[in-house]
């Protein structure tokens, strides 16, 4: 008779507490996914503000050259004074980040886990089969759309950047607050261990779900609106174009994964 090895054991307080928390997954999981993506997007946007300033400088110079040619429009040169360009670049970075939050992070609020009869409720692929990883990836290959490819990929990259940011904060907080209590060696070891655990845990438990949820969202939208080649390419393209540079910045400048192993 096959019985689970834990079946006869009485439930301890830890397990009971964990189970109790599991009842609130509907609330904390969507919020956690949203927060992870938002943190990753900010980590990426923070690396772009200097480049945005260069773009603002370039555009402002071209604009000033253009309007300065005519007496009537010459006063417009003063529209963006030299010292206000930095302000504008930061305002653009903020707008970009908030717009990317809407495109990538908000769909996470639609995250749901459905119980299957024979499996515990916390298990990941309990969604109907058409929303499973396998079914979604098959549709990505057979009926590719810009949304189906770009959004989940961008989510994956910003989720990694977000996990690195959280892990970095965990390491710094633990090391600097525990050093006085437990000494240098213990604090350093524990901080490194916890940072690495946070990084792995976030990628495993939340990162994967964030990507899956975004894939589901992109799939639903594509099924509804992106039929035919032109629609498949164009539907959701502005949003995808908005998040693609941020995803690239997240991968290149905001994901120091190996630093947690050094």
């Amino acid at each position: 008779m096959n019985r689970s090895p834990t079946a006869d054991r009485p439930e301890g307080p830890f397990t009971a507490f964990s189970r109790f928390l599991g009842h609130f997954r509907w609330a904390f999981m969507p919020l956690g996914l949203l927060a992870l993506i938002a943190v990753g997007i900010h980590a990426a946007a923070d690396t772009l503000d200097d480049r945005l300033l260069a773009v603002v400088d370039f555009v402002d110079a071209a604009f000033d050259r253009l309007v300065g040619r005519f007496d009537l429009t010459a006063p417009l040169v003063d529209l963006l004074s030299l010292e206000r360009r930095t302000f504008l670049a930061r305002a653009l970075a903020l707008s970009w980040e908030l717009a990317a939050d809407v495109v990538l992070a908000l769909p996470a609020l639609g995250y749901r886990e459905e119980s299957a009869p024979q499996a515990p409720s916390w298990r990941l692929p309990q969604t109907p089969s058409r929303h499973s990883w396998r079914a979604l990836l098959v549709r990505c290959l057979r009926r590719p759309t810009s949304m189906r490819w770009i959004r989940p990929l961008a989510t994956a990259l910003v989720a990694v950047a977000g996990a690195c940011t959280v892990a970095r904060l965990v390491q710094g907080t633990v090391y600097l607050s525990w050093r006085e209590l437990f000494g240098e060696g213990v604090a350093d070891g524990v901080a490194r261990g916890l940072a690495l655990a946070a990084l792995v845990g976030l990628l495993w438990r939340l990162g994967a779900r964030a990507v899956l949820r975004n894939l589901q969202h992109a799939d639903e939208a594509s099924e509804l609106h992106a039929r035919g080649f032109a629609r498949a390419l164009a539907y959701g393209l502005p949003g995808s174009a908005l998040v693609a540079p941020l995803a690239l910045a997240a991968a290149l400048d905001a994901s120091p994964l190996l630093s947690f192993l050094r």
Partner: protein
Amino acid sequence: MFSRNARGLLDFTLALLCLWTAWHHTPAGALVRRASAWALGRHSTARPLLAYYDGVSGTGVSAPTLAPGTPPLRPFTDGEALAYGTHLALKGLSPKARAPAFALAEELGVPPDSLLDESRGPAAVRKLHEALAKAFPQEESRLTALFAGRVPARYAVERVAAEGGTPSLERLARQLPPGYEDSTVAAAQALALATAFGLAWPVPESAPVTSPFGYRLHPVLGTRKLHTGVDLSVRVGTAVQAVADGTVRRASEDAVNGRVLIVDHGRGVTTAYCHNSELLVRPGQRVTRGELIARSGNTGRSTGPHLHYQLELAAQPVDPLRFRARSSPLVDGSAR
């Protein structure tokens, strides 16, 4: 790895960590904090939204506000400039945020109060720098050690080394957990002020200042406007030199600024040179201190040959004369 029953707690902990990070470290989190503070009728502690993009930011006073009222009596060496900048930044800090610097001073036998003293302060601060120089050879990490403490600074330096790259103040600040914002802001202010004190002058020292920094009646528009730099009376074709090493951010021409150059010197310091007759460098080009970058002129909205020289600290214009040793004549002439 984790029993299935434990995953509820694991997921809850991880989600909470993400929410905590987003709450404190993203503009979206700041928006929510502001909205909830407004709804509850409380005061929000969230930073201004745009401050999330200036690398190191906090609630302290800005570097331009800390600029000295009177210019230095003689040119500073690099060490003196750093010490004076640190002294000014310390004065702008809250008593609580000064604690690490005061603790270090006590450890070295320097009376903490002397760090804030107008006359003895720069020399006292210099002793702290000298004591930290061996363990923290780079100015960025040394200032972090002075304002945040040696342990957090060493930790941040090691983390930046693990990530690879140079330990800029922005990267060091990123490694520190919440609670060190004021320290990293003060370090950035000290560095910006020190860099400004070390700047050369773009034209010969003898060039008279014909229109100083500040509010004035604009000579062309006839309206009261902030003059964001100083006008230096020089002949057309006078050599304009870079006041420090940096990267050309802009080299363009328009109807107001004429042929204009903007050079980014890093550490929050930018200079601009307007109304030139000829620009000799391109955007993106690296320039060195004293390098010929332009020839002065009378282009744009100008009533006579001059160079408009502008200095910005943390993206705010400041009076360049407040950072220049007072050795050249100032002339109260007509505004250009």
